C-alpha cells in the first residue's frame, strides 16, 4: 500500500488525512472515499477505490493508535520511519503537519459511538416514482419508492446503497420503523 500512497498528490493526501482525523474526532460520520477517489482520478491519477480504502484504513489505524498512546509528533514520525515502510517524503510531511495541528485533540473519547461493529446510518434520500411504460407493458402506472441509504461502515468509509420498494412494502417499512422508535422510547 505504501507504493500506492506514492501516487496520491500531496493536497489530496492532506485532504484524506484531514477527513480521517475529523472522523476519529466524531466531527464527520465517515470518510467519503468514493467521492475523493473520483476527484483524484479526474486529476489524472490512476488509483482505484479499493486501494484508496486500504490506505484510509491504514492511516486511520495509525492515527487512532498514536492517539491512544499519546504520541507526540516527533514520536509518531520516528515510529513511521522505524516501521520499515518507505513512505514518500511528502506523505510524512503531511502526517507530521496534520498530527501537529489536530492530533492531540483526538480524545480517547468516552463515547458510545466508539464501538461501531456494524455500519452506522448516516442519511436517507428518497424518490417516489411511477413507472409509466416498459418493454413488457405499454401502460403500467406502477408506483414505487426508491431509497438511497448512506452508511458509514465500521472502518469509517461511507457508501450508498439504493433499492426500490412497492407501495405495500413501503407501508410495512414505515410501520416497522415506527415500532422501532416506540420500543426505543420505552426501553
Amino acid at each position, binding site marked *: 500500500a505504501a507504493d500506492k500512497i506514492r501516487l496520491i498528490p500531496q493536497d489530496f493526501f492532506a485532504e484524506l488525512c484531514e477527513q480521517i482525523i475529523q472522523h476519529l474526532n466524531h466531527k464527520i460520520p465517515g470518510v467519503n472515499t468514493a467521492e475523493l477517489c473520483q476527484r483524484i482520478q479526474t486529476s489524472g491519477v490512476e488509483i482505484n477505490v479499493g486501494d484508496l480504502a486500504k490506505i484510509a484504513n491504514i492511516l486511520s489505524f495509525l492515527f487512532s493508535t498514536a492517539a491512544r498512546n499519546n504520541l507526540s509528533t516527533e514520536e509518531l514520525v520516528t515510529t513511521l520511519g522505524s516501521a520499515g515502510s518507505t513512505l514518500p517524503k511528502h506523505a510524512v510531511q503531511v502526517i507530521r503537519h496534520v498530527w501537529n495541528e489536530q492530533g492531540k485533540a483526538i480524545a480517547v473519547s468516552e463515547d458510545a459511538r466508539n464501538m461501531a461493529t456494524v455500519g452506522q446510518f448516516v442519511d436517507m434520500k428518497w424518490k417516489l416514482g411511477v413507472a409509466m411504460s416498459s418493454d413488457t407493458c405499454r401502460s403500467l402506472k406502477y408506483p414505487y419508492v426508491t431509497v438511497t441509504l448512506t452508511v458509514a461502515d465500521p472502518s469509517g468509509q461511507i457508501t450508498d446503497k439504493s433499492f426500490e420498494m412497492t407501495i405495500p412494502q413501503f407501508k410495512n417499512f414505515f410501520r416497522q420503523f415506527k415500532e422501532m422508535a416506540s420500543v*426505543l422510547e420505552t426501553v
Partner: protein
Amino acid sequence: RAAAERPRFAPPHPLCSPQAPSKDAVRQLCQECFSSAPAALGPLAQLACPGLAVSAEEAEQLVSALHNLTRHVVYRGLTRAEDILCLFPENFHQNLKNLLAKIILENITAWRNEAQASQISLPRLVDMDWRVDIKTSSDSIIRMAVPTCLLQLKIQEDAALCGNNPVVSALTVELSKETLDTMLEGLGRIRDQLSAVANK
C-alpha cells in the same frame, strides 16, 4: 419489435391435428411460451416437439408464435375477448382460436404481474429484520445504558441481470435515536406525498 407485430400462424395447425395435445397441455405450453425469454425459445421448442408430433422447424414456429402472441397481449394490456380474437387471421381454426383466447384471458393478470416483477429496476428490498439493544458497557466505558437499533435489510439485485440465481445481499445498519428520527421524518414525507398523489 416482436411484441408489437401481429403474430402469425402457418396453417394447417399442429394444435388442431388428430395427434393434438390435450387442453391442459396447450395451457401449459402457452404459459411456458410467455414466461420464456426469446433466447430460450429454441430449447423450449425442442422439448415441446415430441408432444406435438411435428417437425422441429414447425415446433419452433409454433413456440415463437405463441410467445409473440402472449407477450403482445400483455404489452398492449388487452383485456377483452374480442380484442384478443381479432389478433388471429381470418381463416384460423375456430375452436382453437376460442381455446387460446380463453387460456390467455385466464392468465392475463398473472402474466402482467410476472412482467412487472421482472422489469428492470434498482435492487429490490426483499426482507427486513430489526432488533433493539441496550449497550451496557465496553472497554472504554464501564457503565451506560444506550439504546440502539440494529436493522438488517435484505436486498435482491436486479432480477433481469441475475436470471434464475438472484443475488441477495444483506445490509446491516445501526441507528441511534437521533438517526432513527431522521429516518422517520423522511419516511413520513414519503407517506404524505403518497396520500397527496392518491387523492388527485
